[in-house]
């Protein structure tokens, strides 16, 4: 089955690169993948959307992803500006870059209606600032996405990052991806324990 990811962010946050890296990670796992931007005016700070489709067979469809199986939201301020949840599958994954929880973001109701194991927030910008030195959360979010969805291995994310960037920048981003992967893995374990208990 085709798996469709929509990534929301702002110009300058590496949204298009995130979709590209995700497609490369999937490609490295022998899968077909298609990544493309929404082709809006990509000004710094303006809302930007990018898409990634992953499938076991060649992907012919060229329409924008309107019914995503997963959302990666790189900037929580978009929640008030863009209908980021439009078309999200009922069991779709949501990963938001924020230091806050779904409740604190005012998304408690949305979160309650969905399985906790499909939702997570991760402070990816803070991780990027600390490990990469720039507020570019995309690599960390891909690490988090690997942990949340299990659709892609963290090793493939690393490989995609190393293929894209020069060694020094790549290693910093790999470190951010690992940290986010661990963070989301821990959060998910805690959530499932809370659910079981």
């Amino acid at each position, binding site marked *: 089955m085709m798996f469709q990811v929509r990534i929301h962010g702002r110009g300058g946050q590496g949204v298009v690169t995130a979709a590209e890296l995700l497609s490369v990670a999937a490609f490295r796992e022998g899968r077909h993948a298609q990544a493309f931007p929404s082709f809006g005016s990509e000004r710094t700070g303006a809302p930007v959307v990018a898409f990634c489709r992953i499938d076991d067979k060649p992907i012919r469809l060229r329409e924008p992803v309107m019914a995503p199986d997963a959302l990666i939201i790189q900037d929580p301020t978009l929640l008030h500006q*863009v209908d980021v949840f439009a078309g999200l599958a009922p069991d779709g994954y949501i990963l938001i870059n924020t230091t806050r929880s779904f409740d604190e973001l005012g998304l408690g109701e949305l979160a309650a209606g969905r399985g906790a194991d499909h939702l997570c927030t991760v402070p990816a910008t803070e991780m990027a600032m600390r490990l990469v030195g720039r507020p570019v959360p995309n690599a960390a979010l891909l690490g988090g996405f690997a942990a949340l969805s299990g659709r892609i291995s963290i090793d493939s994310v690393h490989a995609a990052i190393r293929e894209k960037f020069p060694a020094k920048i790549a290693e910093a981003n790999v470190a951010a991806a690992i940290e986010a992967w661990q963070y989301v893995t821990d959060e998910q374990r805690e959530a499932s324990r809370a659910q079981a208990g």
Partner: protein
Amino acid sequence: MLKQVEGSAAVAEAVALCRPEVICAYPISPQTHIVEALGRMVAAGTLTPCEFINVESEFAAMSVAIGASAAGARAYTATASQGLLFMAEAVYNAAGLGLPIVMTVANRAIGAPINIWNDHTDALSQRDCGWIQLFAEDNQEALDLHIQAFRLAEELSIPVMVCMDGFILTHAYERVDVPTQQQVDAYLPRYEPRQVLDPADPVSIGAMVGPDAFMEVRYLAHAKQRRTLELIPAWADEFRRVFGRDSGGLTHSYQIEDAETVVVALGSVLGTIKDTVDEMRARGVKIGVLGITCFRPWPTAAVRAALSGAARVVVLEKSLAVGLGGIISNNVAASWTGSSDLVHTVVAGLGGRAITKQSLHRVFGEAVAGSLEPLTFLDLDVDVVERVLAREREQRRSGPIAETILRELGVAATKIV
């Protein structure tokens, strides 16, 4: 070698494997990534010998390509949209002189209103210029068509335009199989010009031709293009033998055997159409697809044969002959033995409007039910059109149309698609 790369990067690799000797570059979206990538290869010394010339305009880009080609060099450039229009005079000259230049057109709308997004208006505006025009369905075909284009151009001494959908293909990352240098060298021989500016054997190229000979020059250009229709399938066959995959040729048929309704289209939208057709087939609808790969020369016989069993034809095109309707559909109707009333034109995707499966289901369903109008504009916002027309009736100074519509729609930046 399989790679997951941007369409522009795939095309740049293909062009580099063809060993171009002169590349003329002038930036315009969505073509720019292609020549940027080639520029990096020349600067790094991985593409050599090759002269990468940053020119001052698109007009200069084609003019320099003409000069380079006339001097015997394998010449390449790329453009889009207004850039193609700006070089139009030189585009006609390249064809009229019979110079085998290869150019990528990263298809984009033409203003005004200014719009950087994809449709086919730019390439189709040059449909009568004498270039061969090939349209790629995906990035693999875009890559492959460039290799075929140099072969075609040089064998025939005709320039070739490889058209690929701007952004939708140029900026999409997908899997491509990049051939080896040995494969490309085996398919594409060294360039042996039919005419060359050589100081050791001087000729003049570009003579003025009066009424006594002009028609003959034009006739020969036409006859050569028509002859190309016989050669292109053979070269696509040879391409399959060397590279192991189907790419290029005149047309691609899909699910057409027993199809009562056949959808005709060009370029990347064929993928979305095929997915839609598969879903309709699963419900028992006899519908198929005819993709036009070679738009100029127009493959009359291939189109006629492919449509011979159809009861009706839907031509979905990203272009508009203002004041007439479809451009592609006009060509299709002229090639079909059936009634032209049963050739429906669906103008879609102008200026980058997304073409969705949902909308295709609706319009193809109407065609099958016999309720589709002769000319339809897919997903046209009829309400906003009516409001603008009402305003024009009410007010003499109704204002600029594009700005009025934007005001009517509100801020579009928050929309996802």
